[in-house]
């Protein structure tokens, strides 16, 4: 009885190891990874694009300056609203 158990226990361990190593289910064709779209950036390219160095050309700096000018001009107009917001509008209680 004891010898029988001594044989069965290692056999069970080996069988269990074999089962965990082997794939138990196969991936159906429909669930397989989608094929890449031709021309679309791969994830690694996308990551590289987001960390791409800034465009430091004169043309780009001109564009950036124009954008800053537009914002500054808009800011000046908005400041009039700040001043106007201080205007008092009293109420005539008798009216």
């Amino acid at each position, binding site marked *: 009885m004891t010898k029988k158990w001594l044989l069965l226990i290692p056999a069970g361990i080996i069988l269990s190891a074999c089962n965990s190593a082997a794939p138990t289910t196969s991936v159906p064709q429909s669930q397989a990874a989608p094929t890449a779209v031709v021309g679309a950036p791969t994830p690694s390219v996308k990551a590289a694009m987001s960390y791409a160095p800034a465009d*430091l050309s004169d043309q780009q*700096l001109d564009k950036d300056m124009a954008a800053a000018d537009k914002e500054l001009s*808009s800011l000046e107009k908005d400041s009039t609203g700040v001043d106007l917001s201080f205007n008092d509008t009293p*109420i005539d209680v008798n009216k």
Partner: protein
Amino acid sequence: MKQQKIIATATLVASLISFSAMNAMPAWAAPRTTTPVATAAMADKAVARLAKVRANADKEIDRRVAVLNKLVTKLGVLKGVTDAQKATLTAQVQAEIANLTALKAKIDADTDLATLKADKKSIVDSYRVFLLFVPQITITAHADRILGTAAILQTLADKLSVRVDAAKTAGKNVTAASAKLADMNAKIADAISQANNAITTVGGLTPSGYPGNKPTLISARKMLATARTDLRMARQDVAGVRTGLKTK
């Protein structure tokens, strides 16, 4: 005979004076006779007056609620303000809308002119929509725009910094360009600091603190003016840096 004439003349003059005095008597001194018709007319007049004052008060409240709703929308699109600051201000404005709506219901139920007038006066005295909330939110929104513009200029400064470093590596004299760039960075930093200070300064103001907190609003407005000047100077520095980069 002559004496009789004098007495007659004196009597006539006295009668005339007395008659004239009676005519000049003020209305309150004259005997009153109030007819039921006159009483009803007076009551109608009082009701009409109440309705007119009430309608005007309702109009003033509606105007304020409309402005406050616009302020809530304005707060919703702010980007540079923290979520906590935005939530605090939005809650304040929404509480104000609820209070004004309750006041409107009270005004609509007022039956005597004195109470109605007191309630109408409280639209200004207790709620301070135009005197506190409008400048407070406008300052916060303007500071938020300043932070946005500062971010654009900071991106530009960072790009220019790379260009200056590259020129330096290439052996060019970048002293002037570097000085302008340093000034630009300092101006942007100050603009950001001023805008954030303005937001913090007006953040905790409440209607009950008015007019004592008016100087705080004015000081926040000055901070924004300083920030705008900083940004204009930073923009001028951009041209200076680029000119500096072109020199050999």
